[in-house]
C-alpha cells in the first residue's frame, strides 16, 4: 500500500527522524495562512502517489505567502501522471547544502533487508544505479541480530567525510531501519536527505511503501489508505478478499488462482481478444464471492462478455456453479456468460449449470475462443 509524503513524514517523526515543519492543506488560502504562520519561505508540494512530481511542476518554492497562495492554486487540481492533486504539503523551505539518498528495501535475491545509501541524492536512485553504480553502497542487515551501530556508521561514512556529520547520519539510518521494521514496510526512502545551513541533517522527502501482508497488524496505517487514489472497483474487491486489476478490454475474466488468471489474460490476448480485467477469486471461494466478482465486473461498462475459468483445487466447482446461478438470478446480467469448470466436484457443478445451459467447456482454450466469438 502506498502512502503520501506527509503521512510518511508523520511516521518518520514518530520514530524520531528529523523532518521540516509542515502541514497539509486542501485550499490556496490555507496555504497562504500556513506560510504566514511559518513566517519564512515555504515549499508547496503536491501529495500524489507518483514520483517525478518536481519535473511535472508539482513542487514549488514560495518566497512569500502570496506566492504560496498562487502556487497552491496552480498545483491543486493538477493532473500528474494520471493522478489529480487533492492535497498539498506546505513546509518550511530548507537551505540545502548537500543532498544524499538513504533507503531500505526487502531484497528478494538475498532474502534480506538491504540498506542503500548514496551521496548522489535528489535524483532517481535507479538512474544512479545505472549511470554511476559506484556511488551506491548496499548492506544486507543480519536477519537475526538486526542493524548494529558500527554498520550504520559505516554506511553513513560512505556519504559524509566529516565524522560528526557521519554520526548524525548513522543515527538517522538506525532510526530509519527501526521505522522500516516498525510499520512492516516493503520500502522506505529519504531522498533527499539534506544538510541545511546549520549543518543539520533533515529528511526533505519521505517515501514509505507498506507491505499489504503486514497491514492486519497496523490498523492505524490501514486508515491512511487514500481511497481517492485507488480504483473504487479494486478497493471493493479487496474488501471481499478478491484480487482485481482493471484493464481496458471488453472480455471480463473471473478465474481462481493468480497464475491461472494471468495466463487467462495472456491467452485472451494471444487469440486476439482484449481482457477487461484480472480477477482472482482465490481458493475457498463461496457463492457470495462469485456474486461480488460478477457485480464488480458488470460495473465496468466496457465488458461485453464474462468468462469463467475455474480449475478446482481448494476451490470447489459446485460452489462456483451455485454462485454463478445465484448471481444470474439476482443481477440479471446484460452480457453473455461462458464457463469453464474443471476439477473438484465438477460433476456436481455440471448438474447445477445444466439448468441454465450456459455455453460450457472443459478446455481453457475453448472458453477463451468462445468469449472472443461472443464479442466479435
Amino acid at each position, binding site marked *: 500500500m502506498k502512502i503520501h509524503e506527509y503521512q510518511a513524514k508523520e511516521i518518520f517523526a514518530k520514530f524520531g527522524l528529523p523532518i521540516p515543519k509542515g502541514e497539509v492543506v486542501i485550499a490556496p488560502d490555507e496555504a497562504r495562512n500556513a506560510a504566514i504562520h511559518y513566517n519564512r519561505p515555504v515549499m508547496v508540494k503536491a501529495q500524489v502517489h507518483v514520483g517525478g512530481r518536481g519535473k511535472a511542476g508539482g513542487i514549488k518554492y514560495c518566497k512569500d505567502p502570496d506566492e504560496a497562495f498562487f502556487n497552491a492554486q496552480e498545483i491543486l487540481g493538477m493532473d500528474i501522471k494520471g493522478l489529480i492533486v487533492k492535497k498539498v504539503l506546505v513546509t518550511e523551505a530548507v537551505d540545502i547544502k548537500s543532498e544524499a539518498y538513504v533507503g531500505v528495501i*526487502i531484497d*528478494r*535475491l538475498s*532474502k*534480506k*533487508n538491504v540498506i542503500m545509501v548514496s551521496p548522489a541524492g535528489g535524483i532517481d536512485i*535507479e538512474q544512479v544505479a545505472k549511470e554511476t553504480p559506484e556511488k551506491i553502497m548496499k548492506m544486507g542487515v543480519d*536477519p*537475526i541480530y538486526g542493524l548494529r551501530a558500527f554498520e550504520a556508521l559505516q554506511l553513513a561514512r560512505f556519504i559524509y567525510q566529516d565524522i560528526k556529520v557521519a554520526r548524525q547520519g548513522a543515527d538517522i539510518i538506525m532510526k530509519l531501519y527501526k521505522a522500516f*521494521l516498525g510499520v*512492516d*514496510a*516493503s520500502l522506505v526512502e529519504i531522498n533527499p536527505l539534506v544538510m541545511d545551513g546549520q549543518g543539520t541533517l533533515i529528511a526533505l522527502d519521505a517515501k514509505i511503501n507498506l*507491505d*499489504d*501482508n*503486514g497491514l*492486519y*497488524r497496523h490498523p492505524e496505517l490501514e486508515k491512511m489508505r487514500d481511497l481517492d487514489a485507488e480504483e473504487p472497483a479494486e478497493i471493493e474487491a479487496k474488501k471481499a478478499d478478491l*484480487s482485481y*486489476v482493471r*484493464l481496458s478490454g471488453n472480455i471480463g475474466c473471473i*478465474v*481462481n*488462482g*493468480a*497464475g*491461472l*488468471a*494471468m*495466463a487467462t*489474460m*495472456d*491467452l485472451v*490476448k*494471444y487469440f486476439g481478444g482484449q*481482457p477487461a480485467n*484480472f480477477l*482472482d477469486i*482465490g*481458493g*475457498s471461494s463461496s457463492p457470495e464471492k462469485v456474486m461480488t466478482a460478477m457485480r464488480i465486473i458488470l460495473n465496468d461498462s466496457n465488458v461485453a462478455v464474462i468468462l469463467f475459468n475455474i*480449475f*478446482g*483445487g*481448494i*476451490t470447489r466447482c459446485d460452489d462456483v456453479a451455485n454462485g454463478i446461478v445465484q448471481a444470474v438470478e439476482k443481477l440479471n446480467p446484460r452480457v453473455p456468460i461462458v464457463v469453464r469448470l*474443471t*476439477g*473438484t466436484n465438477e460433476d456436481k457443478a455440471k448438474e447445477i449449470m445444466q439448468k441454465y445451459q450456459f455455453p460450457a467447456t472443459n478446455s*481453457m*482454450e475453448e472458453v477463451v475462443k468462445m468469449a472472443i466469438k461472443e464479442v466479435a
Partner: protein
Amino acid sequence: MAIFVDKNTRVVVQGITGRDGSFHTQQMLNYGTKVVAGVTPGKGGTEVFGVPVFENVAEAVKKTKANTSIIFVPPSAAVDAIYEAAEAGVSLIVCITEGLPTIDMVKVYHYLKTKGVRLIGPNCPGIISPGFSKVGILPGQIFAKGPIGVISRSGTLTYEIVYNLTIKGLGQSTCIGIGGDPIIGTNFIDCLKAFQNDPLTRGIVLIGEIGGSDEEMAAEFIKKNLTKPVVGFIAGRTAPPGKRMGHAGAIISGSSGLAEDKIKAFNAVGIPVAEIPSKIADLMAEKLAAHKKKATLKSAKSTLKKRATKKAVTQKTAPKRRSAKKPVKKTAARKKK
C-alpha cells in the same frame, strides 16, 4: 524415487480442525498420504477423520514420529506455526497459508537455513509425488506417476499444465508448488538440484511468472548444472507494470520482473518457453525424444569407440602368429554381436 516427499513422509496437520485443515486432511488420507497427527491448541485428545489431534507440534511429533508438517492456520498465526514446527523437529514444512508478513519471512528463511529444515511456501498448494504421497491441496486425480518433474510458483495454473501433461501420457515424478510470495523457503534452483539427482525424473517443466529474478537465476543454474531437458512457461506477459497481480510476489517493479526478460533468459540457455499452456506437453515430449536420440547416439558412438580401441590394443598385444590364418572363432563371435 521422487524428491522431498515419498512413502516415508509422515504428516502432522497444523490447524487440522479448521475448515480447510479438516477438508484437506481427508483429501490427503484418500490419496494415501500418511497423515499421522493434527494440532489445534485446545482440541488435544479429539480426532479428525481418525487422525489424533494434539495440543502442540512437539507432542504430536513425540507420539507419532511425524517428520513433515503442513500449515493451514490463518496468516496472523502462520509464522509462529513455522517456528513451532521447526523447533519440534520436523524436517519439511509446507505452508499453504497466504498473507504472511514479508519482514517476518526474512527472519524465518534464515532461521530455517541454520536449523536445516526445508520450507515449501508460503502461499503455495504444496507438493505431490504421485503414487507416494501428497502434502498439500493439489487435486490428486489429475496427476499420474511418470518421469516429469514440475516446479511452479502458481497453484491452479500448475493443475492446468499437469492436466495436459497427464493426458499426453507424461506422468509426474514430483510436482512442487513453491508459492507466490516474494520470499519463499524453496526456490526453482533448490528443486532443480534435487530433480537432477532423482533417477525417476527425466524432464522438467518450470512454470514461472512476473516478479523477482528467480527464473533468470534458474536459467543460469540450468546452463551450468543440468543435463536433463527443461521446458518453461511464464505467466503475466500481458500484465501492466507496477500492479500486484494477485500473488504478493507477482509485481513488475521498475524495470525488473518482466515476463519478456525471463523468457529471454530461458531461450538464451536453450530452454524453450511455451506460448500457451497447452503447448507445454508437446514441447516436453519433443525435448525428451531429442534428448533420448542424443543420448542413444552418444552411447552408440562411445561403444564404437570402445570397440575400436579394444581392437587396436588386441592387435598390439596379441602374440605374432606364424600362420597367416585369421582366428575364425573370434571374428564369428564379433559378427554375432
